[in-house]
């Protein structure tokens, strides 16, 4: 009978589609910031790219926590760093965000705005004094009250340079440039001496470069971007000068950190940012480079280097908030951050930890030299990445900068366009 067939078909499609239509974003909006109560229950802890090298550390940490709180069970999920934001967004939209999530401040901002990040000022304000003031403040969102993640580890990479390339260009390899203007001058000399064969930098300026050059990135209220001021234009104009002289690598417009790192390894580029971890890599993959490696602080014209901050966010919709808060605090407390710092080249965000002799005394090796120098610079470091600066905004800035470097528009026009596009995206974020 046609009617019954049609009815059956409609019912089948409805049965199929209706449950699916329940999927999608949107929380219940009824999350509370109360995290008091007994620490118990099963929680999920998500990190990125840590299992491969630190499996034992985290399994031990979790076992200790479960021993301290016998009624808890922590399930650890680790995912590759590639596309991590997409994975979190899929979880957030699907309502399956883990209880404790490893985040950077720019990832916290949209989650906090969507009501998915727990306000720790309200739920765990008693722990604030345990952390460095700047680190605790790094997970505050302009336009919102509250702090939305426990600060975890900090980092600030040193800048590596190839001493032999400096020597060939007639520069003193023991006196590396420290400010942007010094870098630009050195870069032009190296390009000139090598007929453009050797570039000094391999990446176009990012928002952090503008910050370290002394450009105001946003207005005081955090409601609009401001990096198109005279100083910003000046920075971009200097980069254009480098690009034209081949002191900036011609492939910089499409470079990724990996590709520019490879160029530094092959001696095509004279300077490259990195971390203490890179030293072992140089020793293994480029022994000749390792013999000539120079290590200096990040380039900055403000006197403050850039600080990268990692945090642990607690899901505001977690059913086990007391356990989640307790665990996030446990992972980020002074003792555990210190023990993690001894496993890998990171720096604790807890108050007083950087005064530990581990971060203040050199033993003559390059590794300790890098560690001590980085720890020292972290005391006055600034997180120059605005928490509201999304991936889409990074692309807008990068594209406009590329147009300026190619001469398709002036540095002023490029930055005006970038600010306009970023402001539009900011407003669309709500």
């Amino acid at each position: 009978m046609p009617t019954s067939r049609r009815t059956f078909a409609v019912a089948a499609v409805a049965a199929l589609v209706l449950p699916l239509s329940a999927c999608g974003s949107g929380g219940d909006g009824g999350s509370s910031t109360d995290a008091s109560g007994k620490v118990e229950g099963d929680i999920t802890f998500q990190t990125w790219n840590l299992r491969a090298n630190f499996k034992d550390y985290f399994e031990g940490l979790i076992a200790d926590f479960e021993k301290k709180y016998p009624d808890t069970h922590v399930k650890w999920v680790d995912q590759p760093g590639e596309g991590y934001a997409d994975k979190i967004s899929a979880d957030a939209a699907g309502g399956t965000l883990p209880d404790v999530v490893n985040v950077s401040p720019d990832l916290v901002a949209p989650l906090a705005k969507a009501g998915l990040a727990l306000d720790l000022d309200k739920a765990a304000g008693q722990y604030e004094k345990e952390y460095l003031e700047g680190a605790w403040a790094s997970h505050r969102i302009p336009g919102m009250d509250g702090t939305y993640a426990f600060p975890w580890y900090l980092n600030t990479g040193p800048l590596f340079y190839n001493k032999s390339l400096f020597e060939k260009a007639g520069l003193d390899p023991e006196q590396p440039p420290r400010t942007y203007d010094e870098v630009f001058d050195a870069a032009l000399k190296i390009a000139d001496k090598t007929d453009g064969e050797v570039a000094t930098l391999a990446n176009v300026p990012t928002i952090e470069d503008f910050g370290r050059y002394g450009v105001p990135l946003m207005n005081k209220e955090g409601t609009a971007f401001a990096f198109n001021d005279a100083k910003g234009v000046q920075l971009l104009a200097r980069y254009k000068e480098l690009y034209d002289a081949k002191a900036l690598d011609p492939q910089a417009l499409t470079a990724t950190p990996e590709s520019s790192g490879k160029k530094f390894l092959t001696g095509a580029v004279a300077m490259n940012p990195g971390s203490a971890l890179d030293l072992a890599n140089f020793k293994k993959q480029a022994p000749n480079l390792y013999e000539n490696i120079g290590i200096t602080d990040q380039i900055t014209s403000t006197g403050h280097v850039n600080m990268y901050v990692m945090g642990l966010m607690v899901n505001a919709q977690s059913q086990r908030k007391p356990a989640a808060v307790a665990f996030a605090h446990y992972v980020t407390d002074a003792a555990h951050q210190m023990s993690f710092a001894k496993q890998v080249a990171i720096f604790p965000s807890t108050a007083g930890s950087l005064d530990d002799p581990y971060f203040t005394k050199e033993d003559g090796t390059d590794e300790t030299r890098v560690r001590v120098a980085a720890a020292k610079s972290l005391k006055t470091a600034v997180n120059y990445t605005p928490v509201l600066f999304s991936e889409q905004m990074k692309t807008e800035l990068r594209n406009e900068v590329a147009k300026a470097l190619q001469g398709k528009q002036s540095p002023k026009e490029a930055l005006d366009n970038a600010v306009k596009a970023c402001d539009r995206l900011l407003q669309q974020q709500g």
Partner: protein
Amino acid sequence: MASPTLTTGTPDARKGGGARRVRRQLPASPWLFAAPGLLITGAFILYPFVSTLVNSFTDRRTLVPGEFVGLANFRELLHDDMFWIGLRNSSLYVLGVVPALVLLPLLLALLVQKNIPGITFFRSAFYTPVVASIVVVGLIWVWLLDERGLVNSLLETLGGSPVGFLSDQWLILLSAMGVTVWKGLGYYMIIYLAALANVPRELHEAAAVDGAGAVRRFLTVTVPAVRSTMVLVAALSSVAAFKVFSEVYLMAGPSGGPAGEDTTLVMLVQRTGTGLTGRVGYASAISVVVFAVTVVLMLLVLRADRKEDA
């Protein structure tokens, strides 16, 4: 032991009632057989399609459901430079890749068609790029075409200067097209091999007796015989080319080449619609345009085929 009969009761009732019950059950049973397939199709094709269509009329973001905005997203597309760049690059990709993928695999299939000793090795070798991961293929070509890669080293050895395969806007696009063609050759070659196997040998023999050379036999016998396969290849490759993502993404980088000038429409969908701050509604509108253009492409190819038949 369970009875194999459908009903119980008197023989008469069993006969009549059983027949009626079988008739009543028939309309539903095909649906039950089709249910698993329908469920999968519905969940992974139909629902995302309808959802994308609905989202394209909203200002939905990753973490915000959004509201109905009518045609606002489509109006914004008209004023978005990046959309036009994406449309241009995706269209250029079709124009650059499809003719090569229609002709070159046919020539390759003719080469490996003959059953001579060792030919299986060549068939497998030509097919290898098809089964290789696109990421692996892309990375290999990035290494080869790098400013200090093998290709540029060879050019320098021959006295030339390095070519910016991965830094020039147009060369990046051409390089990506080359990779797409290289990777697709084996796949379409297999399709042509199947078609060539059905071309009657007598036609070639008759043409040869009439004095036709290899080129003439190719044009007057082979091409007409595999014309419908060529149309199929054109349709498949044009849709795939318009939706290109991986090759360009790997060669041009996540920002889509210098100043995003190599961005394709699908790259734009990915860039705009993903992440915690993704504009799902706007990205959906771009997806709807991609869908519409691919449908038009298919119709154009099929219409051209019908004209040839008439």
